[in-house]
């Protein structure tokens, strides 16, 4: 199981948000390329980038930085989310050397878009789903719906997405531990891999996820924990490799 370091980009800098609140951020570094290189040196075999400006403004604000990271690490698989709202944006990222784009908000707002993008860019589309207590969350105001995240994920699986990034929004960025049960239930009900996101705090969380990774959890995105040093990235990836193989 891959530990995937998250690099949240905002205004050209690396930040972390608490539970997705744009106004509640902490700047970690002014040099995202150096941060990416740091994680690669620590053993990262995939990177998770988030364009936070894009996610909020509707188009990529940090596109140049993403390209610079991909150029600095041409063999490193990179996934990116945030503001993936048109085929042009996807094409631009793929041209820049990004492997997968993660469609989030737009997947729920306009499911047809996912299907079309899977046909146009097969093997390059991941869908990111946020959920609370197993129910899909949206960016609207009744923002937790009555929709079971498994039902929705299955629809996207049928559309041809490569993986689901599953974020438990009650835990993301709050260092509360992973919602392992919900993640496993999702993974068991599909044949495409699930990438867990949100809540990884320490080596225990890595161990807990590794124990069930064979159910279809291919990776775990980690952000705040590795920046606040409650989890040593290198140790975490080494433990995962030791427990279940690389």
């Amino acid at each position: 199981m891959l530990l995937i370091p998250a690099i949240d980009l905002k205004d050209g800098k690396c930040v972390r948000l608490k539970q997705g609140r744009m106004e509640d951020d902490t700047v970690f570094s002014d040099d995202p390329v150096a941060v990416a290189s740091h994680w690669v040196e620590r053993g990262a075999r995939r990177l998770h980038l988030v364009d936070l400006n894009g996610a909020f403004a509707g188009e990529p604000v940090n596109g140049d930085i993403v390209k610079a990271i991909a150029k600095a690490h041409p063999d490193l698989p990179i996934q990116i989310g945030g503001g993936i709202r048109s085929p042009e944006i996807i094409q631009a990222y793929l041209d820049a050397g990004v492997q997968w784009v993660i469609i989030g908000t737009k997947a729920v707002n306009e499911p047809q878009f996912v299907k079309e993008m899977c046909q146009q860019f097969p093997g390059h589309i991941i869908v990111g789903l946020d959920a609370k207590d197993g129910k899909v969350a949206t960016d609207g105001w009744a923002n937790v719906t009555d929709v079971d995240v498994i039902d929705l994920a299955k629809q996207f699986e049928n559309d041809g997405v490569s993986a689901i990034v599953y974020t438990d929004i009650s835990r993301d960025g709050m260092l509360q531990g992973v919602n392992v049960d919900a993640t496993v239930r999702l993974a068991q009900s599909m044949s495409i891999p699930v990438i867990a996101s949100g809540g990884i705090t320490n080596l225990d969380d890595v161990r807990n996820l590794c124990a069930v990774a064979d159910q279809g959890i291919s990776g775990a995105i980690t952000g705040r924990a590795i920046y606040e040093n409650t989890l040593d990235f290198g140790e975490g990836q080494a433990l995962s490799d030791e427990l279940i193989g690389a």
Partner: protein
Amino acid sequence: MSEVVAVIDYGMGNLHSAGKALEKVASGQQIVITGDPDQVRAADRVVFPGVGAIRDCIAVLRETGLDRAILDVIAAGKPVLGICVGMQALMARSEENNGVDCLGVFDGQVTFFGELQNDTGGRLKVPHMGWNQVRQGMAHPMWAGIADNTRFYFVHSYCVTGLADEEVAGRCDYGLSFAAAATRKNVFAVQFHPEKSADAGLTLLENFLRWQP
């Protein structure tokens, strides 16, 4: 004194955008986002979004006393707008979570789409997600300025059925015909998300702020 519009907050969702959307269409009304039953009772109008699994939604309402506050506001004749799970919570009963008694303002039932069949006998694809047309079942002040068959944004796996015809303000077809909007006296409830339904959604919210049932 200006009118106060309360948006019910469970502490679970991000309601800032709700406040903003309502402020955009308000004419001098004060928008208050609150989980306090007394503030809800004191308001002139109430928006009731509802969240997540119906069992959790109803449980939170009962724990906080918001259930009684909503019923009091309805009994007092003040305009109430239920949205999505908020609409479902106003029904008699939902089959979600092995059956949950709801607030019983309407006699309708909340049913899972996937157990229903479409025209060709197949299981319906759940969730019902995206834009779909709403057929207005009646002339109503809430539909002012909104053409019949206008599309609204839906995202749900359960739907309301079994309402009396005179309570169905709008219908939507997704394999079957379900109540996209319900109304009784001073209550109006919608299954779709007006806050994600572009101009038509804003018009509906504006109509709500003007509605004098």
